[in-house]
């Protein structure tokens, strides 16, 4: 597994289509040969967590679901918007408050994306500025 912390953020849309994915660890941009197997494992854990999210949506009226699933050291926290878009964050033990603040800020960014007339809902978010902004949020809220 890659050295250092794990921090992957995905947005999953309707019918469980991933529409956005970002590795938010600070070294992510530098490391060229990332450990592929770790990446697959992360994807797998996130995918598996979707079932847990689906169950927990109905147990609360909050959009923030806190930690929904874990696998060894990997934890998955989730936030589900009113339109059932799922924000998932794979991490290794960040504080709940920080994650909550992170999701809240990301939601704002996501809203801006949705309001863009050129964005088709439930399609891949490709805008580089969104990547940058989410990375900046991760830096301030999660100290990544």
């Amino acid at each position: 597994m890659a050295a250092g912390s794990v921090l992957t953020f995905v947005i999953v849309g309707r019918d469980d289509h991933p529409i956005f994915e970002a590795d938010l660890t600070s070294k992510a941009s530098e490391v060229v040969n990332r450990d592929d197997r770790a990446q697959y494992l992360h994807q797998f854990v996130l995918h598996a967590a979707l079932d847990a999210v689906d169950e927990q949506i109905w147990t609360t009226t909050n959009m923030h679901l806190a930690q929904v699933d874990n696998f060894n050291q990997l934890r998955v926290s989730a936030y589900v918007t009113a339109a059932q878009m799922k924000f998932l964050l794979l991490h290794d033990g960040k504080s709940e408050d920080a994650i909550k603040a992170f999701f809240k800020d990301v939601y704002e960014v996501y809203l801006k994306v949705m309001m863009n007339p050129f964005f088709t809902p439930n399609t891949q978010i490709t805008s580089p500025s969104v990547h940058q902004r989410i990375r900046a949020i991760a830096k301030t809220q999660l100290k990544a």
Partner: protein
Amino acid sequence: METINSEIFTLMYGSIVRQLITDLEDITEVNKQLDTMGYNIGVRLIDEFLAKSRTAACTDFRDSTEKVAKVGFRMFLNTTANVTNWNPEGTECSLVLEDNPLTDFVELPEGCSKLKYCNVLCGVIRGALEMVNVQVECDFAKDTLRGDELNEIRLKLISEGTEAYPFKDDD
């Protein structure tokens, strides 16, 4: 003056532009169409402007552009523009928009870099001024959506007619 929620307005304009792009499939055609739509708005809007703004008649082109920038934009878009960059002859100038409510939330996708998203404004100005006998050419020179640091509409005076009766006595 009646007002509507600016987000509704922004989103509605956004969907119009998007629909035009899907329908016409060519960015230059879209720019042209937006300009025509603006023109049709402008020729009607000028009456509303004259009826409600209670401004006195303009003395020259300089005066007209000031009115467009300060009163017109305030009335219809709730923003103002600055008139700058006059050429020595006083026939060309730039309207610099401080803030453009039409472009809130908008991010141009790749392949649309030639799109003049707010070209409708050019049409409106052209149409409105034409109705008061001022022929202008209007072009969106700089656009923050395309990476420029400000929104600039370039205005070029072609002719300024004096008011004349459209009929002769012996008709």
